[in-house]
């Protein structure tokens, strides 16, 4: 394995990071939107969201990705590997994020909304100033956990031809007839990233526990 090979694995890592970031950036607000639909018990939409969340949480990302990559062109929507990959990641994580957001919304004290209402705040303002900052805090550890999960399933993108860490490593292994070293490099790229996220989550949890503990 040459220096150029290692460099190509790192360029794959950049792709992985960019696609993960795109998946997270899409999945967070979509998850919140879905959670709000369920929380507000919007007729028709709420049960559909419940179905979507249940199905996506229970089915493997590989299957969803293959469905999007091969199935969407079948119904007339052409998608490339990158689009299908980001869409699959975003759909998958949005379902998990929805549950985190919803739990945070359920735990939100109703009195505060009523108090905001009584001082004349309108719905949008109430959500932005009163509800959102607090559910972000409550949901943060869960959301970081979902980000970790998302990063850990990104190697699946290699399956439809995205040149990410995994595909770069496998390609080098195939050309040098030594698959072990590039795979170890790939794993060595993932471990610190995931470990950093897990540590961040624990740090947030500890900090919040300290802040909430009675002095």
């Amino acid at each position, binding site marked *: 394995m040459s220096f150029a090979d290692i460099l190509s694995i790192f360029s794959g890592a950049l792709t992985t990071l960019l696609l993960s970031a795109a998946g997270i950036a899409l999945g967070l607000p979509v998850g919140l939107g879905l959670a709000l639909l369920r929380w507000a018990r919007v007729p028709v939409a709420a049960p559909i969201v419940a179905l979507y969340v*249940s*199905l996506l*949480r*229970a*089915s*493997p*990302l*590989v*299957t*969803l990705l*293959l*469905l999007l990559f*091969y*199935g969407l*062109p*079948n*119904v007339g929507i052409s998608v490339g590997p990158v689009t299908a990959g980001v869409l699959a990641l975003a759909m998958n994580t949005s379902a998990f994020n929805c549950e985190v957001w919803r739990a945070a919304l359920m735990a939100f004290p109703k009195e505060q909304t009523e108090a905001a209402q009584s001082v004349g705040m309108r719905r949008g303002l109430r959500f932005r100033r009163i509800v959102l900052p607090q559910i972000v805090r409550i949901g943060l550890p869960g959301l970081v956990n979902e980000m970790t999960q998302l*990063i*850990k*399933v*990104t*190697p*699946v993108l*290699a*399956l439809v031809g995205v040149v990410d860490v*995994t595909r770069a*490593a*496998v390609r080098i*292994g195939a050309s040098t007839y*030594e*698959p*072990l070293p590039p*795979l*170890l490099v*790939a*794993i060595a790229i*993932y*471990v*610190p990233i*995931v*470990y950093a996220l*897990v540590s961040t989550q624990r740090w947030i949890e500890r900090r919040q526990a300290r802040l909430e503990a009675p002095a």
Partner: protein
Amino acid sequence: MIHDFGIVWSERGLLLSGLMNTMLLSALAGFCALVLGVLLSTVLMQRARLLAQTARVFVDAARCTPFLLFVYFVYYGLPSAGLRFDNWSAGLAALIVYHTAYMGEILRGAWMAQPREPIEAGQAFGYTGLKLFRRIVLPPLALASAPVVGNQIIQIIKDSAFLTIIALPELTNAASSIQSRRYVPFASFIIAMLLYWALCLVVEAGVAAAGRMAQARR
């Protein structure tokens, strides 16, 4: 579109054998990972520093490694180090080793959260050794860890889909082969997803039943 589902229905034998293989893999892996996880959890709680720390490194490493890369490592990487597997044993071994780490950590957490008093009371009533474990320690521990173990089994079912990359004929692989031969991608993969969903609902129902048992025992 209805026609596509008809084609998938005509291939139901293949899909069902894929489902059976997924169930078989998940059940075997779940059982072995649970048993090994029990052993691992006791090692994690050892007072012997070196042993517990080695186990801790294994658990943390597994939890930071993507499962798919681990499968590649076992199936493509290890043969060059002299360990050669066929796809079934590589897939099963990867599932078991990877999820043993998670099970060990889950069970350690459940164990630590158990109150000490019933055990001391049991000892006061003359329960010792295996009988103490079987009658006093195990029942509440098993009921308390049932939900998280159930979640882990759902994770195993979902991870088993990754094994399609080493050509193991499980559910996703069956759907892939139907779509590539008959060109019905939407129908075959959506059916596969629904079957995974059904499997997970069954596991969840089992967990809920265990939860009700735990409530009734209180």
